[in-house]
Structures are given as structure tokens and as C-alpha cells.
């Protein structure tokens, strides 16, 4: 890779690094103010108060059960609303291009997809949705979905720090008013400045230089872009997502995409450190995740740089450029692929299907682990769950029963974590096996790559990522319903179980820290944490990865 490529990656990540801590501290001061004045309260306070009054929200603490009930019922209500809009969009206003109502299973899939922060798109963005659906349906959920997982992340952190869980409605409103909306507005303006369109005018028909007629799709793109990346949503306005010049006009906009995707998820460890009262606790997780991220990025860029030997034989030397964002080159394409899966965003500027086998293994791995930073909120809850598993499995070796942040991990917590742990391989492996055996004709590739395609689709759904390997005939009832269910259960089961863990830990009397206590704030723990993720999390998927990308790589490079 060129020196410029490395420098561009380095500078992008440096910017992320610089922003992570202050953002984390801001988040902690908003979601864990403990009565202190929140930053920028003069600006947001009145809006928030007005909304609380409007919806009759009171700042009372909820039990884990009422928190979970509020979360699920609110989410289901929003799903019903958006489902109705999608089905009826043909006869609703703001439909200048005259797009018809959506087919039921596709609407089912799309609704769940956006409510679960997945943004798997089985429809084609610019031609499948009216402007009303795009804004009221999609952009609306692009705010409420990350706000939901933001809320749960802070409820979870409060619980394990022994504080009351808080109130779901307060957290939801606060996430939107004080975090997502302001940053998204600023980012949208930047996107407009960089050249992304923002209009309600219909698709333009132009005559090209050759004299042919071309339809140019446009619309409120910039406003969707900012929240798409910031909220780790990933659903594009255009079908080709960030590979479309309107979604990603130039190198600077690509940088902005990447920074926005990582901004909130990298800041959570710092917020966590503040909430539990020890910056070190958060820092060790941040460093551990960064190391995994760098490893993943290293593999992906190396693989893409090495290119495809089959093409080399044809005299096409150099890296694999097929499906890449050719304006930006291999470095920024690979970086985008790693970031969009590490942060469970799912937007793409590169076709993941045409990544080299190992280059495609990395996004798969990121989604399977969902702990290389992970999606905003829920990703970090998953990280903390793995930290608990690490403590539980190796903590006994210091001669004490395991405790996490001074709270004993006992049978109830471990049962809940066990359920969470089992659910992921079920959601990924079982439907993959069914699809491969019963729906082979919807898969465009035979052999190893076919396995990778299907595996990618369900992994992306289970991890609520939403990016696709494409190449699947996936706008069929089978794919719509199966991925819809995987997204739904992948999202909500772990939310409930982890809230229950927080509720259970919260009620425990903390055990004082002594020199005999298992420490979770140092390098030793960081190493154990990464080891646990790799052995408990990654080994589960080793056999299928061998039959998919690894076999493909080995046959390609024999």
C-alpha cells in the first residue's frame, strides 16, 4: 500500500482517538449527572423539559423489568407505525416519484431492520421508498434505534456500578436531544458543504452527453447520512450506499463517515470509566478493543493489498480493485469495511462481496465478535458481558469467587449470560444451515463463497450490522422473514437478559477491594479479556469460517 494510504488511515484514526475521551466525558456528564448541571444545559435543557412535559415523562427510576418493558413496548409501537407507513406509502403524501406500497414480508423485514439498528436493506433505497417513508419511517428510526441502545448501555453501566438503572423514556429523549440530534445537525451541514444533496425535489431526468436519458435519484440525503453513520445505522439513501457519490462525495466526506461511525462507540469506554468511578477500568477496555481493531485492520489491508492471484496471472498486478471505492483507493476502502463492521454500522463504500477472502473474513469476524468496539450501546454491553465471562472463568485463579466491580458473579448472572452467549450461534448457524440446504438457488455462488455469502447475511443480521455480501436473491419471503426474525431476536433477547444482569448486580452489596481482589483495570486483565473473546467467541465460528473464507483463500493461493 502506498505511504499516502497508511498516512490517511493513521490520520483518520488519530482524529477518532482525539475525540473519544472528551465525547465519553460529555456522555457521562449527561447520562450520569448525579444531580450536577449537565454540559450545554442552557441549550438543551429547555427542549428536553418541553418534551418531558409533552409526553408526561417523569424522572423516576425504573426496575430492570419496567425498564425492559418500556423499551420493548416503545420499540414495538414504533415498528407498527413504520410498518403501516411502508405498506401504505403509495397513497400517502410526499411521494413525488409515485412509489407503490411495500410487499408485506419486505415491509416486515425493513421495519425490524431499522428498529433494530441493523439497516439490512432488501429493498432498493432510491426506488423502493417514498420521501415520507424515507424520513418518517427510516430517518425517524435511525434516531430512535440508536437512542434505544444508548439508553440500555447507560442503564447497564449504572446497574453494574450499583446505581439505580434510570428511566428508559428519559434516557431515550436525552439521547436524541443531547447527543444524536445536535451532532447529526452539525454533520449534515458539513455533508451539504461537502456536496451531498438535501432536497425534497423528485428524481431528475437528464440527457447524457451520449444523448441517452438518465434518471438521477436525489432527496434529503445529507440529513440521512449524518445519522446513518453517527447512530451506527448504515442504511443508505441510495442502494449502493456510501459508494454513491451523493452519499460520499470525496475523501473528506469519507473521513467524516469514518469519524462519525466510531465517535460514540469509542467514547463509551471513557464514559464507563467515569460512571464506575475509575478511568482505568474504561481505558483497559478501550486499549484491548483498539488492539483487536488494529489486528483486524492489518489483516484486511494486507489481504486487499496482496490482491487476487487469479487476476495476477492474467497480468493484472497490484491490489484487488474490484468493487473498491476507486476514487479513494485500497486503504480507505479497507478501512471503511473494517470500521463499518467493527461499529456495526453496515454502511459500505466498497462491495464486501468482492473483497478478497481474508479481506471478507475480517468484516465477518468483527460482526461475529461484536466486541471490536461494537455497535453504539449494545456493542459495549456485549463487551462488558465478555469482561464478566473473562472474570468468571479466570477470576477463580486468585482464590476468590469471581466478582466484577466489587459485585459477585453468581448463578443468576451466569445463567442470564449463558443464554445470551448461546443465542448468537443459534441465530447465525441454524438459519445459515437451513438456507444452504433448502434455498441453494437463491445463492449466486457455489462452493466456499456461497457459504460466505449466506453466513455474512445472517451474521450481519444477528449482530444488527446490516451490511450485505449481496449476490443473494434476498428479496424473497424466506430471506425477508428469516433475517427479520434473526435481527429481532439478535437485538432484544440480549437486551432483556443483560438488563436483568444489571438489575441483579445492582442489588448486590459491594465487596470491598483488597489486594486479594481480581483487578479488571490492568494489562493482565486486558490480555485475558482479549483471550476470552478469541477463545470463547471466535472459536465457535472457526469450523464454518474454515469452510467459507479460509478454504476460499487457501484454494486461491495454493
Amino acid at each position: 500500500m502506498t505511504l499516502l494510504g497508511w498516512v490517511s488511515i493513521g490520520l483518520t484514526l488519530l482524529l477518532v482517538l482525539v475525540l473519544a475521551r472528551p465525547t465519553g466525558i460529555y456522555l457521562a456528564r449527561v447520562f450520569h449527572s448525579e444531580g450536577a448541571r449537565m454540559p450545554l444545559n442552557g441549550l438543551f435543557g429547555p427542549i428536553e423539559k418541553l418534551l418531558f412535559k409533552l409526553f408526561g415523562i417523569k424522572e423516576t427510576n425504573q426496575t430492570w423489568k419496567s425498564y425492559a418493558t418500556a423499551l420493548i413496548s416503545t420499540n414495538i409501537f414504533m415498528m407498527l407505525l413504520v410498518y403501516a407507513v411502508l405498506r401504505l406509502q403509495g397513497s400517502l403524501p410526499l411521494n413525488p416519484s409515485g412509489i407503490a406500497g411495500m410487499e408485506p414480508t419486505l415491509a416486515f423485514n425493513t421495519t425490524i431492520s431499522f428498529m433494530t439498528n441493523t439497516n439490512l436493506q432488501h429493498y432498493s433505497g432510491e426506488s423502493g421508498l417514498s420521501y415520507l417513508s424515507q424520513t418518517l419511517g427510516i430517518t425517524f428510526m435511525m434516531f430512535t434505534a440508536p437512542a434505544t441502545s444508548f439508553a440500555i448501555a447507560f442503564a447497564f453501566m449504572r446497574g453494574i456500578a450499583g446505581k439505580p438503572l434510570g428511566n428508559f423514556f428519559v434516557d431515550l429523549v436525552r439521547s436524541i436531544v443531547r447527543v444524536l440530534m445536535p451532532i447529526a445537525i452539525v454533520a449534515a451541514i458539513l455533508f451539504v458543504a461537502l456536496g451531498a444533496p438535501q432536497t425534497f425535489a423528485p428524481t431528475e431526468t437528464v440527457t447524457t452527453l451520449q444523448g441517452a436519458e438518465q434518471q438521477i435519484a436525489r432527496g434529503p440525503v445529507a440529513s440521512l447520512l449524518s445519522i446513518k453513520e453517527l447512530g451506527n445505522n448504515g442504511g443508505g439513501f441510495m442502494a449502493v450506499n456510501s459508494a454513491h457519490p451523493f452519499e460520499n462525495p470525496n475523501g473528506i466526506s469519507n473521513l467524516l463517515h469514518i469519524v462519525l461511525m466510531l465517535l460514540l462507540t469509542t467514547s463509551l469506554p471513557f464514559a464507563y470509566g467515569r460512571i464506575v468511578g475509575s478511568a482505568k477500568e474504561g481505558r483497559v477496555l478501550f486499549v484491548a478493543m483498539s488492539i483487536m481493531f488494529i489486528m483486524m485492520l492489518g489483516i484486511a489491508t494486507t489481504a486487499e493489498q496482496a490482491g487476487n492471484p487469479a487476476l495476477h496471472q492474467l497480468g493484472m498486478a497490484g491490489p484487488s480493485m474490484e468493487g473498491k471505492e476507486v476514487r479513494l483507493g485500497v486503504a480507505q476502502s479497507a478501512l471503511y469495511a473494517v470500521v463499518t463492521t467493527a461499529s456495526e454500522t453496515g454502511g459500505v463504500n466498497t462491495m464486501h462481496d468482492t473483497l478478497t477472502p481474508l479481506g471478507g473474513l475480517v468484516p465477518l469476524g468483527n460482526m461475529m465478535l461484536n466486541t471490536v468496539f461494537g455497535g453504539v450501546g449494545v456493542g459495549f454491553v456485549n463487551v462488558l458481558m465478555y469482561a464478566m465471562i473473562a472474570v468468571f472463568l479466570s477470576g477463580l485463579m486468585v482464590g476468590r469467587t469471581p466478582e466484577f466491580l466489587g459485585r459477585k458473579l453468581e448463578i443468576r448472572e451466569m445463567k442470564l449470560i449463558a443464554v445470551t452467549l448461546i443465542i448468537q450461534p443459534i441465530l447465525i448457524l441454524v438459519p445459515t444451515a437451513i438456507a444452504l440446504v433448502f434455498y441453494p438457488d437463491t445463492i449466486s455462488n457455489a462452493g466456499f463463497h456461497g457459504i460466505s455469502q449466506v453466513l455474512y447475511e445472517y451474521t450481519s443480521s444477528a449482530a444488527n450490522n446490516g451490511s450485505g455480501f449481496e449476490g443473494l436473491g434476498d428479496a424473497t419471503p424466506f430471506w425477508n422473514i428469516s433475517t427479520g426474525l434473526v435481527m429481532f431476536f439478535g437485538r432484544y433477547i440480549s437486551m432483556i437478559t443483560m438488563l436483568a444482569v444489571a438489575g441483579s448486580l445492582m442489588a448486590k452489596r459491594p465487596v470491598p477491594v483488597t489486594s486479594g481482589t481480581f483487578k479488571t483495570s490492568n494489562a493482565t486483565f486486558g490480555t485475558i479479556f482479549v483471550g476470552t473473546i478469541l477463545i470463547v467467541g471466535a472459536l465457535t465460528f472457526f469450523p464454518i469460517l474454515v469452510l467459507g473464507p479460509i478454504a476460499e483463500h487457501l484454494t486461491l493461493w495454493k
Partner: protein
Amino acid sequence: MSTVQSMKTPSSYDSGSRSEIKKSKSMFGGDIVRQASIDALRKFHPKFMVKNPMMFLVELGFVITLLLTIVPDAFGSAAPRWYNGVVSLILFVTVWFANFAEALAEGRGKAQADSLKQTKKDLWAQKVTATGTIRVSSASLRKGDIIIVREGETIAGDGEVIEGLASIDESAITGESAPVLKESGGDFCSVTAGTRVVSDWVKVRITSDPGESFLDRMIALVEGAERQKTPNELALHTVLVSLTLIFLIVVVTLPFFGKYLNITLHTAELIALLVCLIPTTIGGLLSAIGIAGMDRVTRFNVIATSGKAVEACGDIHTIILDKTGTITYGNRLANDLIPVNGNSVQTLARWAAVGSHADETPEGRSVLEWLTKHSLSYDRELSEQGEFVPFKAETRMSGIDLPDGRLVRKGAVDAIKQWVASKGGPIPSDLDGVTEKIAKAGGTPLAVAVDDQIYGVIYLKDTVKPGMRERFEQLRKMGIRTVMCTGDNPLTAATIAREAGVDDFIAESKPEDKLALIRKEQGEGKLVAMTGDGTNDAPALAQADVGIAMNSGTTAAKEAANMVDLDSDPTKVIEVVAIGKQLLMTRGALTTFSIANDVAKYFAIIPALFMIAIPELSALNIMGLHSPMSAVLSALIFNAVIIPLLIPLAMKGVAYKPLSSEQLLRRNMLIYGLGGLIAPFIGIKLIDLVVGVFL
């Protein structure tokens, strides 16, 4: 409890574990191993196996591969008959090894119980009735009955002395040969069935019905009849079962992926993969580790009422220790000799030494040591000829009757005063002043007299037992705080506390102070351990997370505690905490080892499964194993033999060193984590070298 301090069993004064050594048997005693081998087969019954889902799955695999040996194409794919047979055999052996580990641990516990049972023969008792005494069998004794036990007789039931005073040989229970004194009232009134009266007599009120005596309950506990999984064991079991389910999903879905690639996988190979991936090592050893942990406590002559109590030991934050007898010897060592009535130190020392010459008590020996230290001598020959008068509770003095008729005595100041006065001797005017000074400093004065002359006073000072300071230092490193309880005044208490290096102390403590302290510590989330023997210790023993009652203590104390120390050695609480920690460490180490093993097993089996259909995958055969079949078999064999190889570790526990958590973690992670990652690569390769020869 301090009133009868000097009567405590001698074992209180050394921290050694004499009885432990005496009772420990070889770990793999022939009979136990033979019995365990048979019991291991009995445990194949699905009724037992379902309790351990990991091993149950292996057993199921054994049955299926056995079926495939008979009908190779039962499930379509046809691996060679011999291959299915070998896999089946290895799986059988794997289950047997795991069962054997458990049976062995149980067997060792039973052996312990049997030795206890021998003491519980049918005994005869003299029951007191309205008309006199009648001879009855111990089986007919009920709570509230009163029996008389005379010299040479064995006590037929647990009870409390209500009349009389006797020396009792408790060696059958404690392994301690020196008899102990029991009398009515106070804290030394409880007697245990199976112990023998060696002098005098006692009247005992029976406190338990047949089958419910202390001994009965101990036997039941040790036999493991009441063994329940501890909370941490249950939690770990949950996690292991969830890992098992995950791997089950992985293996069950694998043939479907294979089908898409037109690769047929043999059932036997899939079963082999599953068995290798599920945590069979820790699954097979988990209950053995728990039983062995309890057993280690028992071998240490401490009976724990539950595994939960042993587990709690590992989590202890604070240990409350009585000063006297635990941290210090009590006021039993001569610190100074103070002459009265104008006598010289030399004269006093001479008579004190003559009087102590034959005295084997710590007080007596320390007087002689004091002389040596100050380069003073005394007439040994004269002392040899005299006749020793031992200490008696009634006279409260000891000494020597010399052949020339002179009587040398040392003892409690008022007893000596009385004795001298009875001979018409004078009481020196400065005696009371000296005595008072010693008492104020927290010491005990012993007066020395010859006939009607008082020569001076021996200043017995409280002395910290050697090695205590280091042990407290170790505890501190492990994050455990020690609190000393003493009846002394704050000044004396502070001095001893500093000398011993305890973290805190309670002076002028009353039994309710202990209870208050425990509640306070528990209020801060800490777990507290303590020892006690008196009835007034009972509430605190019950409140403590780990309460160890001395066997010499009252029934009330023993009922309240969750452990009983048969040796009545209060310092043992420190070792019991260590055993608890060791149990948890062993469990953690083997869990880590077992899970880390999976990496190597994956690299053995996955390439083996697909290498024939996808030759390129041989790049993953990083161990360079001979052939797919030998790779699968080698991984399976490694998976089986690692269980018996780790049985000694599971039984003995991992090496325990009092280090900080950080050092412990790094050490154990290196040995069991990294070791667990590397060992199977080497092991599987070595097995493959052998297996490859036959293929």
C-alpha cells in the same frame, strides 16, 4: 474462656499440623483405587450421568459409535467399522476416567468416614434413674438422660458434664493423645461419644438422640451423603453447559455446510469433534475438585458442615482471632524475676529453677530458659533427687519436695501467701507492690517460696508465638485483615498488637463485641471468619461467614459454627482459609486449562475432517499430523488421558502461595492458561507419532 486457659490442650500451643500428618494416607491407596474403578463403572448408569451433561453427551457418543461399529452405515455415511470401534472405545474410556475421578474423591472421603465409624461401636452406659443406675445400650439413650462415666469407661453419647471433673482421652476423635480436663459449667463441659475417661468420674446429661450425635453427623458429612453443589460450582456448571450447547450447535450444523460443498462427514468424526470441543476435562473433574477440597479440610482435622462454608473461606476479608492461645502463648513465659524482701536475684533464680526443674509446662521451662539467658545456674543434682509436685487446680501451685525436707513451691500469689501463712511465715511488705505492678502491665505474677519464706515473683508475660508476624504479613498480602480480640487493657493490647503485626485489635473485649464487629464488617460487604469455643461465642460463630468451633468447646458453640476443629487449635483458621482459596484456584485453573485446550484440538480435527475433500486445507494441519484418521484419534486420546493426568492435581489442589491477586493471576495464567494452550499441541503430536505407526 480465659479463666481456664492453662487447662487447654497442649495442641493449642503449637501451630503445627501433627495430626494431619498422622492421618494422611497415600492418595492412591490400593483399596480405594480398586473400589473407585468399580464405582466408576456403576456411574455409567444414565441416572447418574444426566447430572453431568458434558459427560452424558460423551456417553451418548459412545453408544452411537458403538452402534456404528455394529452397523457401520446406520446413518448413511460409512466410516470403517474398526475406526468407529476405536472412537467408541476411547469415548468409553473418557467417561470411565471422569467417573473414576469422582469415585476416587468420594472413596477417599469414605475412608475418612470409616475410620471415624470405628470409634462408634455400640457402647454401654450407666444410666441414672430414680432408683439408682442401670446398664443400658447407647442406642437407647435419649436426649436428657443422665449417665455416670467412671475411670476407664467410654462415654456413650454426646452430652454435657453436670457434675464432677475428669481427664478425658479424646484421641479417637481428634488424634490428640494428651487427655483434656472436663468439668461442669463453663466452656469445658461438653463431651463427645467415643471418648474415654482416664481419671476420676463425671455425670453427663445426654444432649442428642441416637443417630443425631455429633459423630453421626460428621460421618454423614464426610461420606458425602449430603453433598450439594456449592453456589460457585453451580454457576460454573451453568457456563460449562452453555459452552457445551454452543459446540453442540456448531457440530450439528456442520454437516449442512458440508452438504453445500458436497462433502460427507462421518458421524463418528462429528462426535469426536464434539467431544473434543466440549469442556470434558473440567466437566469430568469438577465434582472431584469439590469433594477433594472438602476432604482436604477433613484431613486437616476440621469438619465443615457444607462445601459452601469451605468455598466461603476463599472469600474471607477479615479474620477475628482471640489473642490468648491463638496469637500469643498467654501469660505463660517468664519475662523477669523480681526478688522481694531484700533477696538477691540470684537467690530467687536459684529457687525458682529448682522448683521448675521437673516442671514440663511452658511456665516451668521458660524459667530455666531465663536462667540460661542471664548466665545463671542452679543445683541440678539437688533438683534431681527431689520429688516433683505437679500443678493442681485445687492448690494452684507446683514445686518440689527436696530430700532434706525443704519444700519449694511456685504458684498463684494468693495461694503461696496462704501456704506460707499456714506455716507461720511472714508476708514480705513489698510483695503486693510488685504483684500489682505486674498485673497492671497485663502480666501474671507467680510467687516463689521455700517453706515459710517468700523469695520473690516470676513475671509471666504474654509472648507472641513465633512466626505469627510473618503469617499476618502473608494474609495482608492476600488482602485479608486480622483483628485481635483480647480482655487486656488497651495499652497492653496495643503493645501485643504491634508486636504480632495484626491490623487491628479490640481491647477489653466482651463476647458481644465480636458479634458487633462481625456485623459491622459484614455491613461493609466483607466476609468474616472467627474461631470460638464458649457458649457466649455462639452468636458470633453463627453470624460469622466462617465460624470454626473448637471441639473442646461447648455444644452450643459447635452447633452455631459451620466448622469444627477436632484439634481445637484456633490458629488453624488461617490454614482453613488457605484451603478454601486453594479449592477455588484449582477449579479456576482447570477450567482455564480445559477451555484453552480447544485451540489445539480444533487445529487437529478441523483440517482432518475436510482435508480429503479440500486438499488445500492441509495448510491448517500445522502440527503435521500423520493422517486425518490419526489426527482425530490423537485428539480424542489426548482428550481422554488428560483427565487421569490431572486427577492428582484435582485431588491435591494447585500449588498455593500467599501472594497478591495480581501475582497469583499471572502465575496461574502462565501455567494453566498458556500451558493449556501449548500442552495439547505437544501432546496430540506425540500421540499422533505413536498412532501413525499403526495406520
